[in-house]
């Protein structure tokens, strides 16, 4: 069964239709990169998948849970779906350890010692174990983003969503974050990334989607997508972006 399934999903903001009709199927272990212009709906699509945004019609199933159904227990779902934001959104009044242990201790009722150990493992994963007692404002942007990834990882998600997580970073800090993503991909994590990093998408993604005017305009394997774009809009987009 597909891990994520979208059928004719429509999303509106008032009169403005952001997602016109989106169909998508994501299998376990896949790594999908979503690219497109701003306003094309790519971030909105991601935010619908973990229920941060509601959909007006269509069906959205994540790990068996019907996200579009208001009776569904979205909290339990979100504990299994990791989401990393563009502006990291670390909690400034908590140190790194408390940022990471907050989810497991409160949502999963994990005893603190066990959660702290989990935090240590997650931080080691992103290469920041020594910063465990630092506060967010003592870290660089790249470090904060890696802590944000560790925070999501500590919940042991079955799928990770990344919303343009390198867009707010200074260029020299982007690499350290992408390296973490690449190692996660190698370990078989199911990932859905909205990104501008074309080279990264080409190298790491199993499938790439091009969103335009609220629909998935074109998709394909990474190689086919970048080497032989079928639609003119994608050709134009790649032309303007890859220059």
């Amino acid at each position: 069964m597909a891990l994520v399934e979208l059928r004719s999903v429509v999303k509106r903001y008032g009169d403005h239709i952001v997602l016109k009709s989106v169909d998508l199927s994501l299998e376990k272990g896949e790594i999908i990169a979503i690219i497109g212009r701003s306003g094309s709906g790519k971030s909105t699509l991601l935010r619908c998948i973990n229920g941060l945004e509601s959909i007006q019609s269509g069906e959205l199933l994540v790990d068996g849970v019907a996200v579009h159904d208001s009776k569904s227990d979205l909290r339990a779902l979100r504990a299994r779906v990791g989401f990393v934001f563009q502006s990291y959104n670390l909690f400034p009044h908590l140190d790194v350890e408390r940022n990471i242990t907050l989810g497991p201790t409160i949502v999963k009722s994990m005893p603190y010692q066990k959660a702290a150990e989990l935090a240590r493992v997650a931080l080691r994963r992103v290469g920041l174990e020594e910063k465990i007692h630092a506060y967010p404002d003592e870290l660089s942007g790249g470090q904060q983003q890696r802590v944000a990834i560790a925070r999501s990882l500590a919940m042991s998600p079955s799928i990770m969503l990344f919303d343009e997580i390198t867009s707010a970073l200074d260029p020299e800090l982007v690499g350290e974050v992408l390296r973490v993503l690449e190692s996660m991909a190698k370990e078989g994590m199911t990932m859905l990334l909205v990104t501008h990093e074309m080279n990264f998408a080409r190298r790491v993604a199993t499938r790439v989607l091009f969103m335009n005017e609220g629909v998935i305009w074109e998709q394909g394997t990474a190689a086919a997508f970048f080497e032989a774009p079928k639609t003119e809009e994608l050709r134009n987009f790649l032309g303007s972006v890859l220059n």
Partner: protein
Amino acid sequence: MGYTFHFRDVFAAQDALLHGLVLTLQLTGTTILFGFVIGLCVAVASVYGSTGAKRAARAYVELIRNTPLLVQLFVVFFGLPSIGVKLDVIPVATIGLAINLGAYTAEILRAGIESIPRSQVEAGIALGLTRSQIFRHVVLIPALRNVYPSLTSQFILLMLATSVASQIAAPELFYAGSIIQSRTYRDFEVYTVIAVVYLALALLLRLLLALGSRLLFRRRRR
């Protein structure tokens, strides 16, 4: 009277002044406690409540903030007996002051809660926290830290405003002053002493609250 000041008569009544001072401190302390709790509940209602709760909260805040404390105290003083509640003057004063402080505190806390960026709340949602968990762990402390200076000013204003309770015969510091004045006729001297005491209290309270913030918002290093 000429230019001779007779402060000695005032200092002779220091017992009375001391009693008044103690009650002022007591009133301040209890009012801040109850007023803060009321303010927090009303603020939560005005941000997270149903439409009805939001309207009620808004009405309470606007009613209190647009009418004088003195009139509010009179309404409480004469209103409670009319619904069958017979209380001593000190509890009545506390209730009136707490209702007053609650409205101002609610406004301040509401601004604090709304100052927390939506992105922080979304991070909490994405982790699977409930709304009340998000409020407790993500919103409350940063909100308090953001508005702490405003809260401090409001609490100091409240301490000074306890003097108004003298008008419903609450025997706090100002009332003690007016009693001494009526006995000794040293009007100006009495109120000069009282003014100085309030000034000292205001400075002390500011110091206390500053220390409090250091304790509350300390970075816990492990």
